[in-house]
């Protein structure tokens, strides 16, 4: 998320709403705009998850039977990758806030590596499915499986783009203990991608 370079200095932000530093010293990490976007994404995914859940209630046998063909190993591996990637980004943010920006950059790179590994595992999983001639139109389960995971897949890709930009900016020394709004915003988005997968994995891969 390339923040406007002109406002790299401490831009006085007029806040129309949202008490970031209210009386109790509570502080919302990152930019309010990203949190609006996160809420919108969570809403879209929530509707998708519930559509899956209630569509499953309609024909449980077909869902359970088709679910057996899913590759549980790659699903679990991907969960571990995203959790670890998320953890690395937390460490990166903490490092940068201590002005250890070189260490922070390395953690960001590690987080991206996990994200990239997730994408690779996913591509293999998809190619296996497409080779078995499974597509969005095979049946309702596969339609949901591909729609949900592909929609999430693209969020991981966008997350990678964001982390890449944050990595470059961190290496340029744009962030530190004083200025880390964009870094926290990007990190919040990345954690949201992990949070979504944490719900998606049991729902689609395991629940029967």
């Amino acid at each position, binding site marked *: *998320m*390339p*923040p*406007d370079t*002109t*406002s790299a200095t*401490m*831009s006085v*932000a*007029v*806040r*129309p709403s*949202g008490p*970031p*530093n209210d009386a109790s010293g509570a*502080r*919302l*990490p*990152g*930019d*309010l*705009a*990203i949190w609006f*976007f996160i809420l919108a994404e969570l809403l879209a995914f929530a509707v998708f998850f519930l559509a899956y859940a209630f569509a499953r209630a309609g024909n449980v046998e077909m869902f359970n039977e088709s679910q057996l063909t899913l590759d549980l190993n790659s699903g679990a591996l991907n969960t571990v990758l995203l959790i670890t990637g998320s953890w690395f980004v937390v460490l990166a943010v903490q490092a940068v806030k201590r002005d250890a920006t070189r260490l922070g950059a390395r953690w960001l790179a590690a987080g991206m590596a996990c994200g990239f590994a997730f994408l690779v595992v996913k591509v293999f999983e998809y190619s296996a499915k497409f080779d078995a001639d499974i*597509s*969005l*139109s095979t049946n309702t389960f596969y339609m949901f499986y591909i729609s949900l995971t*592909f*929609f999430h897949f*693209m969020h991981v890709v*966008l997350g990678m*783009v*964001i982390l890449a930009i944050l990595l470059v900016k961190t290496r340029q020394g744009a962030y530190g203990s004083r*200025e*880390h*709004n*964009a870094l*926290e*915003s990007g990190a919040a988005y990345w954690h949201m991608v992990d949070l979504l997968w944490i719900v998606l994995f049991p729902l689609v891969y395991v629940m029967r």
Partner: protein
Amino acid sequence: MSGAFTKSMARNIFYGGTTFFFLLFLALSFDTMKQLPKRDMRQNITPSIIAGKHIWETRDCIGCHTLMGEGAYFAPELANVVERLGSKEAVKAFIQSRPVDGIPGRRSMPQFNLTDKELDDLANFLEHVNTINDANWPPNIQG
């Protein structure tokens, strides 16, 4: 400066979100184009059907009727009219027999003075549209 609401962040999210969802839309559209041949019976499109679509357009039938539910709501749905009236001949006869000055007090269809070939083409086109796999819409024969 945490918890700020900077315009530059809002603009970046606008660019990122728009690009993201446009790419997603292109992906879904690409898949649709790949799936369509199995659903739209394109293999049955004959020159007559193509000519029929041309008649459909140059007489602006969509200005009163709906086709697959899209168009004007003044006159009946026509994607399943051949099935509803029973045969292509019935449809052709109906079009041919429209009175020039309309039916007093009733919604009236103009007399288009179509030649026999044009009538055949139009009927073939409407019959073809009815064969398209449109998730069995409309709910019943009345359209």
